[in-house]
């Protein structure tokens, strides 16, 4: 029961304005695109509808293969963003938790730092 009252209080109190703001923003975003679609003169020609590549006639497929480095960045991001997520609850409660939690988090950070160092030395962070 306690959870339910808590939830309803939260929903009625502080999250309602967010919903309203979200509604206004979405209406605004859709309105902008739709209004301009109604108002603007559409006179398409084949040349106008070509992808703009500095006046060249586009060659090859756009959805071409791209560097694997972007994939490496994505994976590293997941690791270190998760680390941030783990650090935030501890940071908020750090002064109450004291030294034992600090030592535990230091170990956690050191393990990830070693991981970063390994990726660095392996050349995973290079863009050549």
């Amino acid at each position, binding site marked *: 029961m306690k959870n339910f009252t808590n939830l309803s209080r939260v929903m009625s109190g*502080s*999250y*309602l*304005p*967010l919903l*309203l*703001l979200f509604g*206004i*923003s*979405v209406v*605004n*975003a*859709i309105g*902008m*695109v739709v*209004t*301009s*679609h109604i*108002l*603007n003169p*559409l*006179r*398409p020609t*084949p040349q*106008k*509808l*070509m*992808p*703009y*590549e*500095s006046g060249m006639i*586009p060659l090859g497929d*756009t959805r*071409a293969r*791209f560097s694997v*480095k*972007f994939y490496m*960045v*994505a994976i590293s*991001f997941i690791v*270190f*963003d998760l*680390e*941030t997520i783990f*650090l*935030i609850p501890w*940071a*908020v*409660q*750090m002064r109450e938790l004291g*030294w034992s939690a*600090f030592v535990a988090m230091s170990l956690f*950070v050191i393990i990830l*730092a070693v991981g*970063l160092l390994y990726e*660095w030395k392996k050349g995973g*962070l*290079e*863009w*050549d």
Partner: protein
Amino acid sequence: MGSLQPISGPWALIAMSLKVTIIFGVVVVVVAFSTLAERRVAAWIQDRRGPNRVGPFGLLQPVADGIKNLLKEETLPATASKAFFVLAPMFVLVPSLVTFAVIPIAAPLPTPAGVVDMIIADIPIGILYVLAFSSLAVYGVVLGGWASNNKYAFLGGLRASAQMVSYEVALGLSLITVLMMSGNVTLTEVVWQQQQLGMWFVFPLSLAFILFVVSAFAETNRLPFDMPEAESELVTGYHTEYSAMKFSAFIISEFGHMVTASALMATLFLGGWDLPGTWDDAFWHEGQLISGFAQDGGAILANPAWWKTVLTFGGFAVKTSFFMLLYMWVRWTLPRFRYDQVMALGWKVMLPTALAYAMLVGGAILVLDELGVPWGFWYGLALTGVSGAATVGFMFFLDRGRTIIGAAGQSRQKVSIMSISQPAPAGD
């Protein structure tokens, strides 16, 4: 004087609707005028006049731009993925407009029906909401770049995604120290702890401030980090194919992110709406609006007034404008990085520094608590010393030319002008 109770009942709903509408309106107007401000500041820095024809001092230029963009013909490339192409500007626009919701903009305003907090939604997740929504923006950018089916746009979208996720890590980690100091993720509490400390966090957390500002520049894709839309390489990157109002949506979202990031920097590190002195301090503590604690631990009730709200809002506006100006100033001062330099700075400098600094500040806070230093000016001063030393060390390390100019230095060694064999002078 009204009673010092939070506003409740039907008046709360009215106050809430008014707040949402007014703050949304103000943010949109500020965004519109910051596009003008950007052009005027650019003109000022480059010693020319800038737009000054529409209205007094060109003040109606954003209106003229808006009408023009509404009436211009839009192109929808034949090869584009139509649905995603139309969706992407909306995807970009919405997160940039809703992120502002959790930032407190002024001291609580007393009304006859109760005290109104000057914040759209004081939700318990606070800063996490900002992080979540600002990272949603990357989806719109990537979607726009991919759906355009244009090589420039595609590369711009890819670069944007990699860059934004890289600096999001540093951004999140530089926030850790602020959370350690505030003990909560809500921004009202961050402002309150700065009032209690008697010192804005920019001093005790100076290195976090620097890391945060740099990451925020990279997150908003502003120069010197505007790789995703590097004109000389990618035309305009992910919004190459966009025209008229859809292009406007991308620009509005960029400026929206700038406004939010500026407000966030002001709130996290410059005290938010707090002005020097304790006269304006106010915080909801156990159902009471207090301005501090007495020696015996009892709460001192706050004394909110409408002029305090107005003054603190002015302070907040000045601080936010300062960071907006900084954005424009930096844009017209620094050249663009190369992409490998951006990634090197993000992963090899910002990330390790932010991690080490978080642990350093954590240790320093625990040592200060162990010594029994009370939360106040001397506490802040001690941390300022620790952070100042770390900042000087960081700057010294950067200035050794190992990372930022390192890449350029290496390639100069490889292909220096001396190593290229010179042709023998002809007709000797």
